[in-house]
C-alpha cells in the first residue's frame, strides 16, 4: 500500500474562487450565504409564494467568457453548464498548482469527481420550453445535462486518459469521489488522481423542490446551534490532487496533508431519516482503514480515535442531521466525544450537494496544513443536547498530539462517506 498525500488544491466557491480567497474567508468566518434574487433565475416567478426561504450561497464573480483566470473556450461553454464549469476551473487551478502533468503520465492519472444533480439548468430550460410551447430541444441539452459533463471536460482540458468517472451519491458524492481516488492511488492503480466535486443546482425547479422538503432554513444555516432551523443551498467546486508520498517527496512537491483512511456505509433504513448507526459505521471504517494504509505497527483503530483533533461535520443545520451526527460521534468516540473540536463549513458555503464533501475536504486539508481549526459561523448558542465541542467564535489551534481529522458526508438516502486526513509532518 502506498501512502497518499494531497499536493494540489483548487476551488470555486461562494466564499472565494481561489484557494487563497477561500482560506481567507474560512478563517475570517465570512459567509457566502446571502438573499437571492428570483428575478434573475430563468423561468422563476418573482416574488414566488412557493419558495418560503430567502437565502442561498452563490458563487460570485465567475465569468468564464471574460475573466482571464476563468477563461473557457467556446467548446467548453457550449457543452457544459455552470457546475461543470466550476469543476473545470477548480481542476485547472489544482493541476497548475501541483505541477501534476509535469511529473506523472497523463495516460495513467485518474480523474474521479462527484456531481449528483448534473446540468439542471439545461434540463429545466429545455423541458419548460417543450411543455409550454412544444419548442424544439437544443442539440446540446443532453451533453449539458450529464452529471459527468465536468469530468469529461476536465479530461479534455488536461489531456488525461486514465481511469475517469463521476460518482452521484447525493450529498456524499464529493467525499466518495476523493475516497475512491485515494483507494486507487493507495493501491497503485493510478500514479496520481484529480479528485473532488462540482455542482450548481440553484435552478428554479430545484429551489422549489427543496422548499417542498421543508428542510431549508428561512434564515441561514447555523449548524449545531440551539436555534438552528435548516440548511441553506449552495453551489461550487473543489478539487484535490492526490499522489503517493514517495513520488511527492521525490519531486519536492508541496504537501498539504495526508489521506490515511476512507470509510463508507449505508444506513439501509430510510431515504430522509438518517440513522446514527450508519454514520458511526462509516467513521469507524475510516479509522480502521488507517491501519490498512499505514500497516503494522499501527494496528489499533482505538489509538487512532484518540488522536482525532478535528471533525469537519456534515453539519447541515437541520434539527435531524445535526442530532443524528452528534449521536454518531458519541457512538464512535465514547467518553472523549464531547472534547473533539467539531466544525461545519456549510455555515459559510451552504450545502452544494455533490460538491459539498469536496469543499469540506479542502477546508479540512487547509485546517491541518495551518494547524488551525476554522470556526462555525452563525451559531448563537451551541445546542447543549448535542454535547459536542463545536468550534465557534474564532479559529482554534489544532492540538499537537491530535493530528487526525475526519470529514463526514451523510447523504440523503443514507449513503455515508468519511475521509480521514492526517497533518503531514516533515
Amino acid at each position, binding site marked *: 500500500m502506498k501512502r497518499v498525500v494531497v499536493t494540489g488544491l483548487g476551488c470555486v466557491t461562494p466564499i472565494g474562487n481561489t484557494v487563497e480567497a477561500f482560506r481567507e474567508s474560512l478563517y475570517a468566518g465570512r459567509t457566502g450565504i446571502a438573499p437571492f434574487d428570483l428575478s434573475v433565475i430563468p423561468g422563476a416567478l418573482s416574488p414566488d409564494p412557493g419558495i418560503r426561504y430567502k437565502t442561498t450561497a452563490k458563487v460570485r464573480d465567475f465569468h468564464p467568457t471574460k475573466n482571464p483566470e476563468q477563461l473557457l473556450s*467556446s467548446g467548453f461553454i457550449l457543452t457544459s453548464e455552470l457546475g461543470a464549469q466550476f469543476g473545470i476551473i477548480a481542476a485547472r487551478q489544482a493541476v497548475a498548482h501541483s505541477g501534476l502533468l509535469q511529473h506523472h503520465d497523463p495516460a495513467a492519472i485518474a480523474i474521479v469527481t462527484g456531481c449528483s444533480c448534473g446540468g439542471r439548468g439545461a434540463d429545466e430550460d429545455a423541458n419548460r420550453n417543450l411543455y409550454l410551447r412544444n419548442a424544439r430541444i437544443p442539440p446540446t441539452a443532453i451533453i449539458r445535462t450529464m452529471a459527468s459533463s465536468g469530468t469529461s471536460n476536465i479530461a479534455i482540458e488536461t489531456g488525461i486518459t486514465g481511469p475517469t468517472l463521476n460518482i452521484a451519491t447525493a450529498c456524499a458524492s464529493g467525499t466518495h469521489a476523493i475516497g475512491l481516488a485515494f483507494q486507487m492511488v493507495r493501491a497503485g492503480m493510478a500514479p496520481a488522481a484529480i479528485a473532488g466535486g462540482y455542482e450548481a443546482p440553484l435552478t428554479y425547479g430545484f429551489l422549489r423542490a427543496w422548499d417542498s422538503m421543508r428542510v431549508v432554513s428561512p434564515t441561514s444555516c447555523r449548524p449545531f446551534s440551539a436555534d438552528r432551523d435548516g440548511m441553506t443551498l449552495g453551489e461550487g467546486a473543489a478539487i484535490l490532487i492526490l499522489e503517493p508520498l514517495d513520488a511527492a517527496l521525490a519531486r519536492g512537491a508541496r504537501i498539504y496533508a495526508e489521506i490515511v483512511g476512507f470509510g463508507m456505509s449505508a444506513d439501509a433504513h430510510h431515504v430522509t431519516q438518517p440513522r446514527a448507526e450508519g454514520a458511526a459505521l462509516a467513521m469507524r471504517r475510516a479509522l480502521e482503514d488507517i491501519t490498512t494504509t499505514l500497516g503494522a505497527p499501527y494496528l489499533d483503530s482505538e489509538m487512532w480515535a484518540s488522536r482525532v483533533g478535528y471533525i469537519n461535520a456534515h453539519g447541515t443545520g437541520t434539527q435531524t442531521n445535526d442530532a443524528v451526527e452528534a449521536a454518531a460521534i458519541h457512538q464512535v468516540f465514547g467518553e472523549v466525544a464531547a472534547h473533539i473540536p467539531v466544525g461545519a463549513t456549510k455555515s459559510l458555503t451552504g450545502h452544494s450537494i455533490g460538491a459539498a464533501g469536496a469543499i469540506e475536504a479542502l477546508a479540512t486539508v487547509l485546517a491541518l496544513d495551518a494547524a488551525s481549526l476554522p470556526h462555525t459561523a452563525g451559531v448563537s448558542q451551541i445546542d447543549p443536547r448535542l454535547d459536542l465541542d463545536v468550534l465557534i467564535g474564532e479559529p482554534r489551534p489544532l492540538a499537537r498530539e491530535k493530528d487526525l481529522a475526519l470529514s463526514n458526508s451523510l447523504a440523503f438516502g443514507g449513503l455515508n462517506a468519511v475521509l480521514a486526513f492526517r497533518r503531514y509532518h516533515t
Partner: protein
Amino acid sequence: MNDIESRIIELVAKSKNLPPSEIHLDTTFDELQIDSLDKINLSFAVEEMFSIEIPDDNLNSLKTVGDVVRGVETLLAAAQPKAATS
C-alpha cells in the same frame, strides 16, 4: 451586407466567442474550428432564427459561412408562397 448575412455572422461569432468583424462570408468552418457538434448547434440556432428546417443532407455540404447564408436564402425562397400564374 444584407440582413440574413449579418444575422448569421452574428450567430457564428457568438457561438465561437469572436467579434463579428472577424467573420466573413468566405470564412471556412475549418478556420473557425467548427466541429460536428458546433455545426449541429449552429444549424439549430439558424433554424430557430429563420423558422426553417435544414435537411440532414444539406448539413454536410456546408463548409463556409457563405454556404449557410446561401442555404438559408434558398430555403426561405422555397418557403415563399408562389405568385399566381394566371
